[in-house]
């Protein structure tokens, strides 16, 4: 094994390491508290439960890195599920229905980006509006009724393969949904850490004035972050449709807060310019095992909410205190 030089050690993201240690700690605590936690079925179940939020959090990380926020992720998730579901039940080829769902997610995201970087509405407000607009459209086109994709409502030989991406398990164990998460994580990791675009995301979030004075098209970079988020939210929304086969217009309500929480726990700074994909992944894992573990231990679900709140505050408080010491 290669031994790290002093400088490389200094450059390791301390937050990533510390949050990983917290994850391990929580993991050990639940392993001790209940024998059910460490079982392979349960762990795979956790992995599946975090997949959809995890996919959305990848986009959110990029948006927060450029110094913005996206409150409309849950609405896009709900809207794209409804659109794809309605098109499938209307007899469209499934691939086309999925494509339209994905494109509409990206378009809504891009529209967020337009409002923020060209019309210059603060992203909190632009996406708060879009959250309602998205949910409203979903309610209108579905008339508020659930959309059901099952063999009773859909006559399409490919339906089973569609449902497989939501419900299937590879070799009977690994949820397909989690494989999608893994792919999105890898793509996002390469995009953020290795690509020029990722470099520009960090640059714009770090100092937009310097970015502009370096010839970087800051508006386009921001627009991309929002469009990418819209796209991954559509992926999550469509996976959700394939998983529960029965979606409502408001199925994404409140998800934005879980998604933002995981990004924050993962060490991404709301000031922009700093954050990691792996940190976000650990953040979403922590929320996942807390949700699952507390339930298994038999603690009231009301506690769960409180504990997650404390983890968010604790993580950021430690970070802020450490930063001040430096």
């Amino acid at each position, binding site marked *: 094994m290669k031994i790290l030089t002093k*400088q*490389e050690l200094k*450059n390791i993201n301390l937050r990533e390491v510390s949050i990983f240690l917290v994850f391990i700690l929580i993991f050990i605590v639940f392993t001790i508290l209940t024998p059910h936690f460490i079982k392979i079925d349960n762990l795979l179940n956790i992995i599946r439960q975090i997949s959809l939020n995890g996919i959305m959090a990848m986009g959110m990380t990029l948006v927060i890195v450029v110094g913005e926020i996206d409150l409309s992720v849950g609405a896009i998730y709900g809207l794209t599920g409804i659109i794809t579901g309605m098109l499938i039940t209307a007899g469209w080829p499934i691939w086309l229905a999925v494509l339209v769902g994905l494109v509409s997610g990206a378009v809504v995201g891009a529209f967020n980006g337009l409002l923020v970087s060209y019309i210059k509405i603060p992203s909190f407000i632009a996406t708060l509006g879009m959250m309602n607009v998205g949910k409203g459209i979903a309610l209108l086109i579905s008339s508020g009724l659930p959309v059901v994709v099952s063999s009773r409502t859909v006559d399409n030989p490919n339906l089973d393969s569609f449902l497989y991406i939501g419900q299937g398990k590879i070799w009977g164990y690994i949820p397909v949904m989690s494989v999608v998460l893994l792919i999105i994580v890898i793509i996002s990791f*390469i995009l953020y850490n*290795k*690509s*020029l*675009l990722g*470099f*520009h995301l*960090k*640059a714009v*979030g*770090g*100092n937009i*004035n*310097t*970015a*502009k*004075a*370096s*010839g*970087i*098209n800051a508006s386009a970079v921001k627009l991309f972050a929002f469009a990418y988020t819209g796209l991954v939210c559509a992926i999550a929304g469509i996976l959700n449709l394939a998983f529960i086969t029965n979606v409502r217009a408001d199925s994404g309500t409140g998800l934005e807060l879980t998604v933002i929480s995981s990004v924050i726990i993962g060490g991404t700074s709301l000031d922009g*310019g*700093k954050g990691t994909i792996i940190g976000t992944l650990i953040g979403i894992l922590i929320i996942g095992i807390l949700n699952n573990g507390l339930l298994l231990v038999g603690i009231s679900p009301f506690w769960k909410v409180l504990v997650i709140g404390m983890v968010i505050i604790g993580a950021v408080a430690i970070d802020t205190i450490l930063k001040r010491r430096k």
Partner: protein
Amino acid sequence: MSERIRFENISKVFPGTIALDDVSFSIKRGEIHAIVGANGAGKSTLMNILGGQYKNDQGKVFIDGKQLAITNPDHSRRAGIAVVYQELKLCDNLTVVENVFLGNELRKKSGGMDWKKMRAEAAKILKAFKIDVGVNEMLSDLTIGKKQLVEIAKAVCLAANIIIFDEPTSSLSMKEVKILFDIIKDLKSKGLTILFISHRMGEVFEISDRITVLRDGKWVGTFNSARVNSDQIVDMIAGKELSAFLKSKSIEKRTFAKVILEVDGISKKKLYKNVSLKLYEGEILGIYGLQGAGRTELIQTIFGLLRPDEGKIKVWGKNIIALKTKQRIDLGIAMVPEDRKGSGLFQNMTVGENIISAIPQGVEKLGLIQKGRLQSIAGDLIKNVKIKTYGVKQNIEKLSGGNQQKVIIAKWLAKKPKVFLLDEISRGIDVGSKAEIFKMMQALRKQGMSVIMVSSEIDEILAECDRTLIMRQGEIISEFNRAEMVKKRMVAQAMGFEDEEL
């Protein structure tokens, strides 16, 4: 008259510069005392120490013979000192009366705010000084000049007995200056002590009883205004002519043939008007003037960060006015901004990332950044520009100001610029880095690069520039060739003393 304020051996060091160096002098009770000096002479730093914004590293401040430890603005306020800052410290979203009493609100017995009384008092003061502003007007609706008068009313309301005016006239109209001077004289007649900082020599002589000159953080002298003339004061502000060595260094007069950049009659409302200049290949052109003279805005316009209302900018004869910053960079224009932290660096990034931030195409392949290329390009530049760092992976925040500045220079050298715009490049950096940077610029000039150098340091303008334009209040008012550059005249012009005064 007895002594009101005494400064004793005051020193203040900022990273890279000594802002105040062993300054001692005193201010008499009930006088109007002017403090003059060039940008960076230490006037504002001294006033900020008195106002509690900064803490002096060494020395003592005495008020009425008692030593006073001023460590925050509240101490200063309790000692009866009020500062009317150059950059207004008022809230635009509040009304006049709310601003006047902010932080000093009058309460009713019940604990509630006594707006009635506050409005009455504010109206009384505004009226006493003939300030034509309603107490209920929103501050955002007022002109800058009126805002300044509100700030003065606030200082008076605080029942201050020492009022510091930090360049109060820079944004006032003639009429407002007159109102202000009447107020100041009125305050003096009521026994208040006034400190008055200004660049305008005429005003200084009109209003002050005594004048203190600061230069490069040092006390030069304190004089009775009636016994000196502006010629003598300017001599002291500017300092001696450069040493023979500095002058001989680049006295050789070079001739230039090819125009690389031409600015033709550009104007932008409130920032600059009808600015024209020519920059020749291989030339270092200086732009000298005070802060706020429109120098930075001119440079930003050439770089494409600001759009002029009218006029043309040509590079090799081609009008580039429609081009964006990115396209201008590709044409070979580069800029080191005045505000290093605000618009020069990515502080969340490493040295290497900062260096390659303007040359993505050099290190990118299929959209991915080639780590190896990044390291070799950045590594070479770190060596060439002599940046002191552990390596490309060091975080930029850990570097000294001088080395950070070199990183920004390295970033642009990677693009092999033809026109290099430098805005206050030596600000806040150590002497060694400064010398290295200028040496580098001279070497690049010999290879045909052209430089526009904006500076408020007359000595570096004299030492480095082939030609210098003086900018004042948004206009280029004169031009000096290498052979014609005379320190005193240049300083006087930039500060706006009329020639006949000299």
